[in-house]
């Protein structure tokens, strides 16, 4: 690892970043620091453990007397349990406990996500407290047995009958019953600037079209699981989580105990994508453990994930764009209806990206909600943007076609100089540069402006593009502890999460560069609710949250080290802002020869270690700047002229996402997002039977995600321009890859065939 070796011979010390963000301070010194570990391709430090089977996932914790849980689900959407016969199950071999609403312990509903700072619940319904059924697939019984097989067999012996009540399981019915304006982030999903309808009517050129996207289910490779045990009144949950502290707090609320009495760990997670929060299974597992007095492992079957863990809801979107003859937008209208359950708080906010995408004189943005009796829908990779950019960016393509303007040029033509609906300046927006670089590399100039012009045998070939975008977020709650030992080893602890995206690796790189250490001198510890901070691995915000927390803790660390160094140190008299990390110690920024190692400082002070803990400052940067990531997405699609089969032959993402911390893990994040976007475009669809609200394809055989042969070589490039207002100059990049991708595919299909498909997924029957 040449990069790691380089770190030991840095020429310049890395000074402290200002411990506040967004008020025009000097940028983080790491922004300019080009010779350290940040930005290099270090393989994930958890990789070897995972391929050796040594990484312990939630369903792999061993415990004395462990029992295994299996669940039985309702088969009606609304009503009550009429009869529930558990006698055969109770008599089955190995059964320890059958728990139903008749004997489950008293529990409060889960605090619903976004209703309190640390709320993590996917719904706010009573859990096994009564005979009421709220969705088709609701758990109605839990069986504990000595083995998983015994539990599964016993669960097949439970016999339940239901009394159904009138339910709404059809989107059209739900819309007829009346809709209401969706709320997200504390305000209505509604924005009007000027009279967009009038501007549309007066526009020289306009398009006005309806787009739709179906339901999607979560399919992380690791199904949801938890290993749960009570120790007196204290609860330990080894979970698969992207919110350990939120989950601990929420479980404490459910069971009426103190937050400190719940300990949630999550050392490894096999993918989250917004789904690995608190759902009923952890609560049921804890309840069964309480009743049985035994540790419980609850692992959802794949079907169980479909029945119990919400996914992305369906949307119907109207996008209308009005422009002058030159292509300047006069009106942007993006409105429509989404389906939502009654027991959650996430109306798929498909207008989010549209608020800041293009300059226009008038806007009309509005999300209405139709309520159904169904599983609570939830966050799924880029909620809002993933499907909202499908409508908006297809409409831009349609407008470009109508205007006779190249789709890339139309987007550049409408590039705003400040946020078009908020008026704030951009912290860092270099999308035009990303478009130019991407178009060059992709060979966009070879695209035929005329659709259906290029054919290779039975295959029609076309190119399409779209803008991807996702916000920079940093949520309150960041905090970190740094423990520096006399051996010159630093351990960072933060209640953050590693779901496979490379968090731990990237922050080892960041910490090593800040402290002047090598990668193997830094340990990054995470995934434990007893650690500092309340950091959600969501909204692509974790990188910034951790980054700011480490900066805050480093301030405390350096302050303390200078006190310990004392007057006999070469550093004597220097202030924290005058020193930086270099070669395993601190050095004067202006004169790096003035240096003392951490080992020397601690040794002379007679200390084995120094430990500091600090909270990150509030995210003021978001108040003062419009902060977003961008991607210019290019797709080449081949469509069979006879059968309508679509195969993607090339894809390029050109990203403007601030400073990239680890080239290798970043490329994987971008590619993974794009692959998920290809699934969104071509095949993903939860088959929700509108007659009874039952999901009919709850398996990876029936619910299609891209197989290897569906994924072409995906080229990803980035401009690596640091954002001057963020920690490390970085943006989170977990979600942007899925945005714009579906539109780029649909636009390429239009270019290939001349057929405009506005309804996802783009299956062959729509192209025959």
């Amino acid at each position, binding site marked *: 690892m040449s990069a790691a070796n380089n770190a030991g011979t840095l020429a310049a010390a890395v000074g402290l970043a200002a411990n506040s963000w967004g008020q025009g301070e000097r940028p983080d010194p790491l922004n300019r620091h080009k010779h350290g570990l940040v930005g290099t391709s270090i393989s994930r430090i958890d990789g070897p453990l995972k391929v050796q089977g040594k990484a312990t996932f939630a369903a792999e914790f061993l415990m004395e007397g462990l029992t295994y849980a299996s669940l039985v689900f309702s088969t009606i959407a609304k009503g009550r349990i009429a009869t529930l016969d558990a006698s055969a199950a109770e008599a089955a071999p190995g059964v320890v406990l059958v728990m139903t609403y008749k004997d489950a312990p008293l529990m409060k509903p889960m605090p619903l996500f976004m209703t309190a700072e640390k709320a993590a619940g996917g719904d706010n319904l009573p859990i096994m407290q009564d005979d009421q059924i709220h969705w088709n697939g609701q758990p109605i019984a839990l069986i504990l047995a000595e083995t998983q097989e015994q539990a599964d067999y016993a669960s097949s012996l439970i016999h339940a009958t239901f009394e159904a009540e009138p339910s709404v399981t059809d989107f059209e019915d739900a819309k007829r019953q009346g809709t209401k304006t969706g709320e997200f982030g504390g305000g209505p999903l509604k924005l009007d600037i000027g009279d967009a309808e009038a501007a549309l009517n007066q526009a020289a050129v306009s398009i006005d079209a309806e787009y739709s996207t179906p339901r999607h289910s979560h399919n992380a490779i690791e199904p949801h699981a938890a290993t749960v045990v009570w120790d007196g009144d204290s609860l330990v949950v080894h979970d698969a989580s992207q919110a350990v502290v939120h989950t601990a707090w929420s479980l404490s609320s459910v069971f009426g105990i103190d937050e400190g009495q719940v300990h949630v760990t999550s050392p490894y997670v096999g993918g989250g994508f917004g789904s690995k929060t608190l759902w009923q299974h952890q609560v049921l597992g804890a309840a069964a453990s309480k009743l049985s007095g035994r540790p419980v492992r609850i692992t959802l079957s794949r079907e169980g994930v479909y029945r119990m863990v919400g996914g992305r809801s369906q949307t119907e979107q109207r996008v209308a764009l009005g422009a002058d003859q030159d292509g300047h937008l006069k009106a942007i209208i993006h409105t429509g209806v989404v389906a939502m359950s009654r027991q959650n708080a996430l109306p798929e906010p498909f207008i989010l990206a549209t608020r800041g995408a293009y300059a226009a004189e008038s806007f009309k943005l509005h999300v209405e909600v139709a309520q159904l009796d169904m599983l609570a829908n939830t966050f799924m990779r880029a909620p809002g943007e993933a499907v909202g950019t499908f409508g908006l960016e297809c409409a831009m393509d349609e407008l470009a076609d109508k205007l006779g303007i190249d789709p890339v040029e139309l987007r550049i033509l409408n590039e705003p100089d400040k946020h078009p609906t908020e008026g704030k300046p951009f912290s860092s927006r270099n999308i035009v540069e990303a478009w130019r670089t991407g178009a060059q590399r992709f060979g966009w100039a070879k695209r035929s402006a005329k659709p259906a012009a290029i054919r290779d045998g*039975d295959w029609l070939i076309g190119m399409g593009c779209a803008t991807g975008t996702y916000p920079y977020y940093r949520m309150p709650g960041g905090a970190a502890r740094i423990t520096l030992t006399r051996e010159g080893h630093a351990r960072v602890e933060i209640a953050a999460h590693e779901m496979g995206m490379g968090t731990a690796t990237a922050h080892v790189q960041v910490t090593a560069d800040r402290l002047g250490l090598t990668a193997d001198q830094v340990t990054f510890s995470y995934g434990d609710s007893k650690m500092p901070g309340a950091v959600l691995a969501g909204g692509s915000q974790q990188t910034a949250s951790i980054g700011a927390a480490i900066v805050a803790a480093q301030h405390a660390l350096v302050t303390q080290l200078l006190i310990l160094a004392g007057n006999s140190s070469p550093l004597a008299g220097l202030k924290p802002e005058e020193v930086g990390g270099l070669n395993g110690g601190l050095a004067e920024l202006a004169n790096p020869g003035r240096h003392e190692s951490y080992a020397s400082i601690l040794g002379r002070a007679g200390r084995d270690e120094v430990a500091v803990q600090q909270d990150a400052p509030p995210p003021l940067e978001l108040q003062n700047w419009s902060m977003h990531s961008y991607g210019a997405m290019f797709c080449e699609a081949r469509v069979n002229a006879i059968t*309508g*089969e679509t195969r993607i032959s090339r894809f390029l993402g050109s990203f403007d996402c601030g400073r990239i911390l680890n080239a290798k893990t970043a490329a994987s994040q971008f590619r993974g997002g794009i692959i998920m976007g290809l699934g969104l475009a071509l095949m993903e669809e939860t*088959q929700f039977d509108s007659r009874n609200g039952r999901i009919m*394809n709850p398996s990876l055989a029936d619910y*299609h995600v891209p*197989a290897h042969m569906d994924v072409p070589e995906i080229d990803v490039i980035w401009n690596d321009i640091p954002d001057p207002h963020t920690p490390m100059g970085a943006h989170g990049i977990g979600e942007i890859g899925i945005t714009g991708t579906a539109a780029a595919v649909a636009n390429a299909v239009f270019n290939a065939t001349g057929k405009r498909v506005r309804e996802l997924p783009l*299956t*062959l029957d729509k192209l025959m």
Partner: protein
Amino acid sequence: MTPFSYSRASDAGQAVQLGAMAQAKYLGGGTNLVDLLRETIERPSSLVDVTGLSSSITSTPSGGLMIGAATTNTALAEHRLVRSQYPMLTRSIVAGASAQIRNMATVGGNILQRTRCAYFYDTEGSRCNKRSPGQGCDAIDGFNRNHAILGTSKSCVATHPSDMCVALAALDAIVHLQGPAGSRAIPLTDLHLLPDDDPQNEAVLLPGELITAIELPAPLVGTRSSYRKVRDRASYAFALVSVAAVLAVENGKVTDVRLALGGVAPKPWRARQSENALLGGPATEAAFRSAAEAELIDAVPLSGNGFKVELAIRTMTAVLTSLAGDFS
């Protein structure tokens, strides 16, 4: 999964003896049956493992091949004689499932695999006449994009999911059976039953009868063949439509044609009406299309699979047109 006893047969005679017990099931690679056990759709009291039976592939005196029913799908697809003389069969097998599944699945099990209709699999939440006779069918008015358009009934619209069987149907394969009452051989195209009023009956097998081998007649001299599978993703998906075709053309006339369809019917569907329309006639795209239409004239599309009619016609036409091109 309901508890069952397990035994392993060392030869066909022993297997048939063990299989004569009530509620016994023969177990091949288990790639479908074990799923059905897990879903409690199948609840046999005993499983007779027949993977130890013949998996040999040998030439027959008439110039064909005799394939032991325990041959894995992979072994069959990779066999030298199959690849050289029946390339369509190899193509159909590798178009199915995944490499891992093909490594486990046996020829006998592939033939007797059951439908993947989602309503059939949803034991608790959906009605299914195949799973619970007389209960009703939730697929007919539900999600039926993948369902059949030919040979269906008011009681069932499920498809037979095999790719391999479609090629075997076009190749006039013979199925060798052994049961308590003795041995017999029947054409593959006569093995599977259409649903009519009792879709739980899927094959003409007598109780305890076991598939022991598949026989392929000698390859037809002077023919070209192909297998084309159309599906929703590039791999690991069942056919929306598949076409197995064997064609011979002389002086612009069709002198021999065998056609079978997958993904459109409750059984591997031999397209006899198309064959009859084509034989002796011109080998032109127009004639191929018209012959394909003749097969699909009886199609009964459902709410979600109407596209299969045109897709089948187009795919048959394209496959035959491409094969005919090899003769010009």
